C-alpha cells in the first residue's frame, strides 16, 4: 500500500484526519490497475470472512463445501497478492516481464485452483 505521509502540523492530528489523509494519498499515488487489484482482494477477504461466519453460526456439516469455498478465497487472495507484487512498477528490480505476462500467470493459476476446488467441493 502507499506509504503514509507524516502530518504537517506538530500536534497529533485526530485519527479520523489521519485516515482521510491515508485514503487521499492512496487514491492519488496508487495506479488504477493496482487499485482494481486491491478492490478484488478486499472482495475476497470479505467473502472468506462471511463464509467463516456462516460456519460459526450453523456448523461445519457440508465440510467439503466450506473447506473448498474458503480455500478458493484464500488461494485467489494469494494469487491476487502475487499479481499485485508483479504488476507494481515500483517493484521492477531486474525483473523483465510485462504485467500482461503476470496476468496470464494469474489466470492460469486461478484455473488450476478452481479445478482443484471443484474436485473437492463434493
Amino acid at each position, binding site marked *: 500500500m502507499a506509504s503514509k505521509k507524516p502530518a504537517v502540523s506538530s500536534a497529533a492530528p485526530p485519527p479520523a484526519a489521519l485516515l482521510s489523509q491515508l485514503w487521499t494519498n492512496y487514491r492519488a499515488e496508487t495506479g*488504477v490497475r493496482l*487499485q*482494481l487489484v*486491491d*478492490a*478484488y482482494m*478486499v*472482495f*475476497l477477504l*470479505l*467473502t472468506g470472512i*462471511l*463464509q467463516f461466519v*456462516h460456519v460459526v*453460526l*450453523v*456448523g461445519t*456439516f457440508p465440510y467439503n463445501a466450506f473447506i473448498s469455498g474458503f480455500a478458493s478465497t484464500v488461494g485467489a487472495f494469494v494469487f491476487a497478492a502475487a499479481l499485485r507484487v508483479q504488476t507494481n512498477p515500483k517493484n521492477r528490480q531486474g525483473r523483465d516481464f*510485462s*504485467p*500482461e*505476462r503476470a*496476468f*496470464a500467470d494469474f*489466470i492460469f493459476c486461478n*484455473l488450476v485452483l*478452481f*479445478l482443484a476446488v*471443484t*474436485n473437492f*467441493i463434493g
Partner: protein
Amino acid sequence: MARIRLLRACALLFALLCFIVSVTEAAKSKDAKSVKKVKKAKKAAEPSVDVEGPRTLKLSDFTVTVRHSGEEATTHTLAYPKPLAKPLTVRPGDSLRLAFQLDVVPEGKAEGKALRAHQAFIVFRPANSNASPDGELVQVLESTPNGKHRIELIANRFAKYFSRQPGDFNVDVLLGVFGNVQPVRYPLGTFHVDFPPADLTDRTVVEDLAKRAKQRALEGPADDGFMALPEIEHQFRPDDKMPPVTFSLGFSAVVLSPWFVLVTLWKLAGANPANLPSSPVALLAHGTFLSCLAGFLGLFYLYWTQLRLLQTISYGAILAVVTVLSGRVALSDIAHRRVKATKKE
C-alpha cells in the same frame, strides 16, 4: 472411449470362450477315464450304497456283557429296539462288553446284507444333566466289514469321569450310514454307575478339578449345535443437522454481497470497461479469450454436477489451446497499447 470398451469386451469374450472350450475338453477326457475305471472295478465292487432305494438298518445278536471283578460274567441279550429290562450296575474294576451284528435291509425285503456302519458310537449321558460338569462320555465302536460291531469298556479307564458324577447314566448306541438309510439311535436303558465320589481332600483331585474348571471357562458354554446369530442390520446414522432453507438462501445472498462491494470499489477506482481495442481482430481475440475463461468456469460447473475427471481434463485441454492462442493475441494487444500510452507521455 467406446472403441476401447468394445475392444475390452471382445478380449473378455475371447478369454471366456477359451476357458469354456478347455473345461469341456478336460471333462470329456475325465469321463473317458472314469468309464474305463468303472468297467475294471465292476467285478470287485462292494455293495453299492447310493443307487439303491430306501433301506433300513437291522441289528441282531445284540448282547451286553458285564463282568464284575472276581465274578462270572452276566450276559444280557437285547432285541432292538427294546431297552434293558433292569438297570445295569457298573462298579470299579468291572468290564462292559457290547456286541451286535449290523445288516442293511432294502425296503420290502426280508434279507439284507452285512454292513459296516460309517459312524458307530456308544454314548453315556448322565441322567441328571444338571449335575454333570463334564457332559457325555462318547466312545467309538470297533467294526469289521462283515457287520460285526463291538466295544469292550474297562470301567477303571474312566474312573475319573465316573467319580466326578456317579449315578445313573442313559446309554445310547448311535449308528450312521451313508446313503438313503435311516440312522439309528438305540437307547439301551439306564446304567447305574456305582463309583465312589471324588475325594475332595485329595490334592491331585482338587488340582484336576481346578484345571478342568479353568479349561471350561476358556471354552465357554457348551454349544448344543450351531445357531443362527442375530441378523446384522445396517444402522443408518442420523441425518446431519441442516439449517432451514430460508436461512441458507439468505446467507448465500450475504456471502454474495461482497460482489456489490467489488463493483462499487472498481467504479470508485476508475475502471474503464469502455477501453475497447480498436481493431476488429483484437476485439475478436478479447472476446474469445473472455468467453474461453467463462467456458472454463462452465466446464468446472459441469465437472461438479455430471462430468468425470478424465472427461473434464480432455475437454479442458481443447479449451486451453483456444484460450492460450486468443489470450496471447489479446494480452499482447493490451501490452502494445500500454507501451504506446507511456511513449506518448
